[in-house]
């Protein structure tokens, strides 16, 4: 055990000095490939995943995805008649929720920052914008405070509309309403060659509106994610859902306020414009509702130990001065090399 200490310290130093953005890029790429094409290798992780692994990615082709986003089953399951909804027959809804929780607890919102294919697409659009040297937009603080509420509204709709359907108040054509307007439905099947979700369904007014809304939001998604980092995540009902459940999650973002100089470096790099990450020096559990746990803040923090990532109580990645300087100088070297 003792002999391993220096090795462990070296490992920790190596981890803390990692070029996080690069690491995240590869993880995102791998999970993107896995969740969009894993089905071809007969991988099936079930239908309770806390990320946008779209169910529509399976239909019409050879079942391309390696798993399914939980929002679809949730909405369908909730659309049961009310008299059966609160009986033992509906116990499977709870078990579904349980499985979903298990998945989620393992990674907390890192599902958003590292795994979610829709998040990855947004990061790629950001990379494209960076490549063509267009500056990014930011919301003003008041816009931000207003916009961040939308995701809770969407989450409420994802529950209330199916309940309404179950009791016959709402047409069945609004089944899984969030999926109908989700850009994931339109975009993700594209990667396995399915263009059918770009269609506008003229069957009825409802379908016209919903399908048109779907592609309209997709259009906004593409433009928005191009000019604003992680544009869609501000509105994502899954993000809101995950945050509400995040208390017992194993992966945690911790802040030691006494070490923080409030230099704002973390806020500077935050895709989600979370100001509290820099300004809040009291809260130890610093993960905000918009947070995607992309951990860029930890990598951008120059104060040793001020920001930490813990897994089941064990620190796995920590802000260090040496790590910061290493990353910083790597950036400058890269700049010199590109000259």
């Amino acid at each position, binding site marked *: 055990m003792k002999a391993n200490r220096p090795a462990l310290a070296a490992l920790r130093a190596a981890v803390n000095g990692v070029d996080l953005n690069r690491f995240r890029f590869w993880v995102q790429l791998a999970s993107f490939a896995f969740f969009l094409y894993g089905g071809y290798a007969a991988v*099936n992780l079930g239908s309770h995943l806390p990320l946008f692994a779209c169910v529509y990615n399976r239909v019409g082709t050879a079942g391309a995805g390696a798993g399914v986003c939980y929002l679809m089953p949730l909405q369908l399951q909730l659309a049961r008649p009310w008299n059966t909804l609160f009986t033992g027959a509906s116990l499977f809804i709870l078990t579904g929720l349980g499985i979903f929780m*298990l998945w989620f607890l393992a990674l907390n919102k890192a599902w958003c920052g590292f795994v979610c294919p829709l998040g990855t697409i947004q990061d790629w659009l950001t990379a494209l914008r960076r490549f063509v040297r267009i500056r990014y937009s930011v919301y003003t603080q008041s816009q931000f405070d207003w916009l961040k509420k939308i995701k809770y509204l969407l989450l409420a709709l994802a529950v209330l509309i199916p309940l309404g359907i179950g009791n016959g108040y709402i047409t069945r054509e609004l089944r899984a309403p969030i999926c109908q307007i989700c850009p994931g439905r339109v975009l993700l099947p594209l990667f396995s060659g399915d263009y059918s979700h770009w269609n*506008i369904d*003229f069957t009825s007014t409802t379908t016209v509106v919903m399908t048109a809304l779907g*592609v*309209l939001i997709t259009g906004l998604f593409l*433009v928005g994610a191009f000019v604003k980092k992680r544009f869609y995540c501000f509105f994502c009902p899954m993000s809101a859902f995950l945050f509400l459940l995040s208390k017992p999650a194993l992966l945690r973002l911790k802040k030691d306020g006494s070490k923080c100089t409030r230099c704002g470096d973390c806020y500077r790099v935050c895709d989600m414009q979370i100001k509290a990450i820099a300004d809040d020096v009291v809260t130890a559990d610093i993960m905000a509702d918009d947070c995607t746990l992309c951990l860029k803040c930890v990598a951008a923090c120059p104060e040793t130990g001020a920001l930490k990532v813990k897994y089941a109580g*064990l620190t796995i990645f920590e802000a260090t001065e040496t790590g910061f300087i290493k990353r910083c100088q790597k950036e400058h070297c890269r700049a010199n090399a590109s000259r």
Partner: protein
Amino acid sequence: MKLDLFAVCLLAALPLLAAAQEHHKQPKPADQRETTPAPESPASAPRPLDSAPLEIVREKAPGEKANFQLCSGDEVVFVVLRRGLPVQNARVRLITQQGWAKDTLTDAHGRARFQLIRDYFPPWGEFNKWARHTFLVVAETAAPDAGNIQDSSDTNGPNRATLSDSYYPSPKDYSSYAWGLGIVLLVAAFGGTSVYLYRRRRVKPFKEVAFHEGQ
């Protein structure tokens, strides 16, 4: 400390294990169970079959799967077989529920082709994309074939076989890819332009100095 790392790995692996179990419990999706070989493969080449004097078989569309459904506008192909062998010049008639009918003759491979017509014209508000319509296919051999019916030779009447099936309205009737693409492009163009204009024209106090890059 080494234990800590081990615990991390174990904890990370837990949901995976749970998922693997769940995966075992689940029935396999239908499309993975399907093992029927495609009709155009050599294994399904015509072969004599005495038990079937005359029959109509719908030929599978390329890439057809278990949940396949016919739609109006689809081309549908039937093969007329006598004792398992294709019949040329058999008269094949397709009659829809509405009474529309069309005749054709089979080709050298015993095939007859039809295009399912659209004959579902409800008012737009009542349109149901799951509206199911049936049709009937009747095949007659042009040259009556000598055969025995109830131990007596039958040389007069035409040899006839029927087949019924159903179809749905074509997605083209109610969905439009062009519109979808159009909306996306329109929104993208509109959004992009407005962002561009907003950035160019906005004269907020703190934006009065902008940087223009160029090397």
